[in-house]
């Protein structure tokens, strides 16, 4: 075993080439034991072994470092006690804004843009909610595309790579965060116009359930947490085409007291079409 890292509550003993060990160290992972689950991650020339079992499903050609980061992330999220929602999260003065979304929706890019504008980095991957509804930071390295790196003025990866992992410190993210409360839930929407638009509180609650990684562990607990957060937060749709402009909107939102406008109830009877919708959280 060449190195040891802690991700959330999970500890990973990593057996890897020395160059990879160095790269992991530069990404800001912390050594140390948490009392949580321990794993042995072995990096071989053409495969990864987690606790002696080959890791399946890795896209062909995935660089070893990226593959290791994916395994660390997936395992740690699967083992966290927090309610976990797939989302980017940034904060200002203890007020956090989350934007739940699927992979590829631009969470990491928007998160990085927000941090470059001075917001606190909470996570580009998961909103982690404790039972008292406080937010636990998950400050993993951000995997940013060449386009995003260029847009944010960050060093580019080698020519053969389309993206590279970026340590939070490289974005000038603050090293410590105090207590965090979720004050804003935002739905991301691509649009030619950068603006905040209404979102119903019901849609916000549904989004916090649909995008959960682990609601199935305890659906009733997940329901209480997700709907409680939606009931207590300001909700809006963030329409944007430029991450830096969107980040500026978010910075204004977190710095100002007024909540964004919300939908008004619709008219008429529309029960069959929209009365009941099932979540598809995965």
């Amino acid at each position, binding site marked *: 075993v060449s190195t040891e890292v802690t991700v959330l509550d999970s500890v990973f003993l990593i057996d890897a080439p020395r160059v990879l060990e160095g790269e992991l160290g530069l990404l800001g992972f912390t050594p140390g034991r948490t009392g949580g689950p321990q794993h042995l991650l072995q990096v071989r020339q053409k495969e990864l072994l987690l606790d002696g079992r080959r890791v399946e499903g890795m896209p062909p050609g995935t660089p070893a470092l990226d593959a290791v980061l994916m395994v660390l992330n997936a395992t740690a999220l699967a083992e966290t006690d927090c309610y976990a929602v797939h989302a980017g999260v940034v904060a200002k003065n203890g007020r956090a804004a989350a934007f739940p979304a699927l992979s590829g929706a631009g969470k990491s890019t928007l998160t990085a843009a927000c941090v470059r504008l001075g917001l606190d980095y909470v996570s580009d991957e998961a909103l982690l909610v404790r039972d008292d509804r406080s937010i636990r930071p998950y400050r993993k390295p951000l995997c940013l595309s060449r386009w995003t790196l260029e847009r944010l003025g960050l060093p580019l990866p080698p020519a053969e790579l389309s993206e590279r992992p970026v340590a939070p410190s490289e974005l000038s993210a603050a090293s410590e965060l105090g207590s965090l409360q979720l004050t804003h839930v935002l739905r991301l929407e691509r649009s030619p116009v950068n603006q905040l638009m209404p979102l119903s509180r*019901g849609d916000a609650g549904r989004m916090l359930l649909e995008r959960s990684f682990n609601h199935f562990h305890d659906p009733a607990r997940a329901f209480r947490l997700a709907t409680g957060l939606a009931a207590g937060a300001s909700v809006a749709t963030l329409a944007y085409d430029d991450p830096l402009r969107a980040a500026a909107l978010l910075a204004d939102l977190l710095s100002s007291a007024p909540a964004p406008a919300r939908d008004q109830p619709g008219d008429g009877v*529309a029960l069959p079409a929209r009365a009941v919708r099932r979540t598809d959280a995965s």
Partner: protein
Amino acid sequence: MSGVLVHTDRMPICWVRVPDALSQDLDAETLVLAPGAAEALHLNDTASLVWALLATPRSLEALRQAIASTYDVDLVRAAQDVEELLLQLESAGVVRRVQE
């Protein structure tokens, strides 16, 4: 399907929430979780009105009257919509039939 929910041979049927169903009013909308279910239901404003009324047993007639008066729609349309909703809620395990 219309008419199947109205009454049995002896007594009219009412509808009421299942006791352990969780629900959260989110402005005009409601999220509901059936006991033991993994997926929540998202009720729009009109369905949320029905859900609110189902805190105590209600007949189809009472529900359609409430919908018709609140949303200014005719009773036939309201009855159809309420019946369909009740069947969906029953199928999801969040309401049950009781005798009046």
